Every structure is written in structure tokens, then in C-alpha cells.
């Protein structure tokens, strides 16, 4: 077997380990990722829709819908890779034992990315199904794309989480990362309002991987595709995934080996 296939197989074992731990507390684990978008959609989408005119021919709830899928992916990936990873690393010393087995830091990190890809993908699908039933998705085929885009979006968001986990000095500092990085990304990436009329924000948003995922999800949910734009956002997500993924690997390696 080649190096890569051995690595991937070992990384898969890390995914399985995470799944076994995760399913023990399934309801608690799944609740925030599903309840938050549902509440947001009810409060903002259904609550505000009557007061807000149409946006690009969409009701506000329809406008908001794909952003909820992206939000699920962002929070699933970020919290799993920041708090989740940090707790496993620091309080549970999971890696102290894991790294004495054939698993190396590379497999740990690849395993984390696979894990959040799958989790975020599944969550995106679940949210998508809810949206479909609420009649908020113009194009049912989009439902097939949600898990893919959601999973893809989870990789750079997870990498930000891992970077946070490798740089914070204690668990409280995640609050700072959340307030000054994740919250702005979440609120200002086109989920709640179109960036087209806000040139400065529109430019800043380009450096947020989340924005590119939001756009891809919006295009699929609204069935409003622009080929050039698709390629651009996929490319940007790929670049963010590769660069942030590599950076987080290097930082975690420093953290787990001395």
C-alpha cells in the first residue's frame, strides 16, 4: 500500500473513534447545530419577512435559507476543531496515547478534517431537508449539493478552529477568537443581507472562506447560477482549504510533538 492510502486509512480510524465518542451523547451533540439555524430562520426569516420587501425577487426567509446551511457547517466545524480538539488534546490527553500507535500527527489532522467534512455535510443535509419542507428552496436538486458544499466549507472553517486550538493559552481565549473572528465572519458574509451594495464589505468578505461557501449555497438554493462565479468560489474555497489546512497542520504538529 502507498504512503497516502495507509495515511488515509489511519485517518479514517480517527474518524471512527470520534464517531463512537460523538454518538454516546448524540442528542446533546446534534441539538445546537440544528436548533440554532431553525430558531434563526423562524425569528428572522418568518418574523421579519412581512416587514422586509423582496431581495432579488426572494422573500427574506428564502434569502436567509441557504445561509442557515452555511451557518451549520461553520459552527459544526469551528467548535469541533477548536473547543472539541482542545479538550481532547489538553484535558483528555487523547493524543498522548493515540500518537504511540501507528497514528501520527498527519493522520490526526487529516482525520479531523474528514470528520468535520462528514459531520458538516450531514448537518447541511438535515438543515436542507427542513428548509425544503418549509418551502424555502426553489430547487430540490440543491439538496444533493448541500452536503458537498457544506462539507467542503467545513474544511477551512475547521482549520481556523485547529489554528485557534494551537494558539490559545487557555480555553477561555476561544471566546476572543469567536467574538473577533468567527462572529464577524458569520454576520458579515452575506448570510443576512446581500453584499452587492456594500463595496467595502464585499471586498473584505473575499478573504473569508465562509463567504465563498455561502455564495455557492445561495446559488444552488436559489437556482441562480453564474458559471464564472461558481468556478471562482470553488477555487477560492480550495485555496483556503489547502493553505489554512496546511498552516493548521504545522501548528498542531508543533503542539503535539516537542
Amino acid at each position, binding site marked *: 500500500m502507498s504512503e497516502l492510502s495507509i495515511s488515509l486509512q489511519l485517518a479514517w480510524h480517527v474518524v471512527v473513534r470520534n464517531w463512537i465518542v460523538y454518538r454516546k451523547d448524540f442528542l446533546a451533540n446534534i441539538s445546537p447545530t440544528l436548533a440554532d439555524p431553525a430558531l434563526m430562520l423562524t425569528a428572522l426569516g418568518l418574523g421579519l419577512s412581512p416587514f422586509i420587501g423582496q431581495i432579488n425577487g426572494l422573500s427574506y426567509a428564502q434569502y436567509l435559507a441557504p445561509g442557515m446551511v452555511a451557518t451549520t457547517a461553520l459552527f459544526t466545524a469551528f467548535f469541533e476543531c477548536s473547543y472539541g480538539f482542545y479538550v481532547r488534546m489538553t484535558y483528555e490527553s487523547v493524543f498522548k496515547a493515540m500518537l*504511540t500507535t501507528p497514528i501520527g500527527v498527519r493522520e490526526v489532522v487529516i482525520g479531523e478534517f474528514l470528520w468535520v467534512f462528514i459531520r458538516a455535510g450531514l448537518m447541511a443535509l438535515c438543515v436542507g431537508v427542513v428548509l425544503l419542507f418549509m418551502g424555502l428552496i426553489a430547487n430540490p436538486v440543491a439538496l444533493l449539493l448541500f452536503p458537498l458544499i457544506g462539507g467542503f466549507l467545513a474544511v477551512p472553517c475547521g482549520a481556523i478552529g485547529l489554528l485557534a486550538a494551537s494558539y490559545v493559552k487557555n480555553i477561555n481565549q476561544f471566546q476572543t477568537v469567536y467574538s473577533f473572528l468567527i462572529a464577524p465572519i458569520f454576520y458579515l458574509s452575506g448570510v443576512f443581507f446581500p453584499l452587492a451594495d456594500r463595496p467595502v464589505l464585499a471586498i473584505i468578505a473575499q478573504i473569508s472562506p465562509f463567504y465563498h461557501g455561502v455564495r455557492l449555497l445561495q446559488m444552488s438554493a436559489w437556482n441562480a447560477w453564474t458559471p464564472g462565479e461558481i468556478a471562482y468560489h470553488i477555487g477560492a474555497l480550495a485555496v483556503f482549504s489547502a493553505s489554512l489546512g496546511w498552516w493548521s497542520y504545522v501548528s498542531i504538529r508543533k503542539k503535539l510533538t*516537542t
Partner: protein
Amino acid sequence: MRETQSTQNGATELREQLPVIRARNVGKLFGESKALAALDLDVFPGECVGLLGPNGAGKSTFIGCLYGAVLRSEGELSVFGHDPAKHARLIKQRIGVVPQENALDEGLTVRENMQVYARFGGIGKEAALPRIDELLAHMSLDHKRDSPIKALSGGMKRRLAFVRALLADPEVLILDEPTTGLDPTVRHLLWEKVLAYRQAGKTVLLTTHYMHEAELLCDRIVILNRGTVVDAGAPRELIAQHAPGFVGIFAKEDKERLRAQLSSGLELYQQGWQVCVRGPSLQALTDVQSASSTVALQLRPANLEDVYLKLTGQDLGDNE
């Protein structure tokens, strides 16, 4: 280091094979401080080698270097002929490690924990369960198979960490303070298992603070201090070299009276809160005892602890 060499010459039948672990001039810097410095060490197949040394002497750092958890700053190191900084996985496929912390998955049951680790060790699903059950029974943990880790006592957790290390039937077992904090019953059980493992021709490297444990289990002791090897040899050889004979332990107040009666061949030194007299025979010690009208707290053959305290500079020598 003349002693080390003579010791190594003594065990020639081992030296004909290639060492499993070979360290030459290994150093590790943590910022400015040297955790390991010019460390030379060989571990041969079938040997049990014990690393002794004060806290911070570099024992765990060295062990971490062996499977790539710690990257050495200098020197040559090979395990099964592989450099752990480059090919850690090839090494880790063939070793079992009991780390200082058990690091078990608290949320999972005993069996689930082992299933996860069997997968990591490349054991197929069908082979894993019988292997796990066999080892759990071996460590008298079979009745706890479905308990969550939280429900286990410290001794049970430690035994489970042993099960985990043995899952993939490793050629070398690395034990970092295997019995620290355990009650004597569990300690004896673990010693028995280590001896049985050795009997199968396997190799063991362990660190410990218990001299008795080292003397009982190890063919060879390596004493580390400040990141380097101070001396190495079979336990009896080390005792014969550094602290031969018998030791009497007395109360501090007896020091002057003992000194007055000290005959030649006897050595008096203070060791923390106690005063020790070392001599060639038990008779010589009882003679001093009656001549000085003192009563020893203990009269015993010299052991590894005397060697350890002497070599690691923790006997605050009276005659220095």
C-alpha cells in the same frame, strides 16, 4: 566511564545481536535547558532495561524520542534500524507504550476503548474482539468489559493501559513509570505480567522510581542524571561497584557517637534525615552498633537505592 564498558563486555551473548534501540550522543534542548545531553544507550533484543533517575533527568523525554513524540536536537537514534524522527510509524507498528498518563477515552467503555485502539494498531475486526477479551482476562479485567472508564479504579485503569499496549502483540514494550501510585497487589500483578512478557523473548524498556521494581525486573539499569547516563550495568554489578556490603541506618542524633567508633572499612554518611554506615559485613555493623551503644533503625544489604542516591548526587555526603 570505564565501569560501563566492563559491564558491556560482561554480557557478550547479547552484544552479538544488533541493538533494538541504539542512541548515540542524543541531545534535546528545550529552549536553553538541556533535557538530554550526549546520551548513549543500547537496548538489545530480549533485554529488560530500566531507566532510573530523578524527576527531570530526561527519562520520559528519551522515551518520547523513541517514537517521534519528542524530536531530538542532536545525535543519532535508531529503533529497529529506523530513525524515529523520519519513520515513526514503522517503529510504532512494532512497539507498545504505556505512557505516564493512562489517557483512556473516559466516555467509552473498557471494550470500546480497546476496539478503537485495536483499529489504530491495524487489527482486523474479527481478530480484535477475541484478542481484547483474552488480554482483559489476562489482566483480570474481564468483569469490567462493559463498564465506562469513569467507573474504574486507578489500578484498573493502569491495567487497561497495559492491555492497550499489548493489543498488537508488540516486540518491544515501553513502560513509563508503570506502577507509580498503585497498591502492592496491582503492582505485583503487573510485575508478573512484565516478567511473563519477557519470558516470551520480548524486549522491555521501562522508567521507574522504585528501586525494588528495577532490581526485580531489569537485566540492566541505566542511571540518568541531568539528561545523560551516569552509569549502567546489571543491578548486582552496580551495587558491587558503588555500594558494596551492608548498610545500617541510624537516627541523626547518633552521628557523633557512631563516628567515634568508626573502624576502617566503614563509611559514614548522612542521607537526608538519616545517618548511614556502610560496611563489608553485617558483623562489622553490629560491632559498631554495640560499641557506640546505638540501635540501628534498619540493618540491611546495600541495594540499588544506595547506588541511586550516590550516583545522582542526592546523598549529601559527610566525607566529601
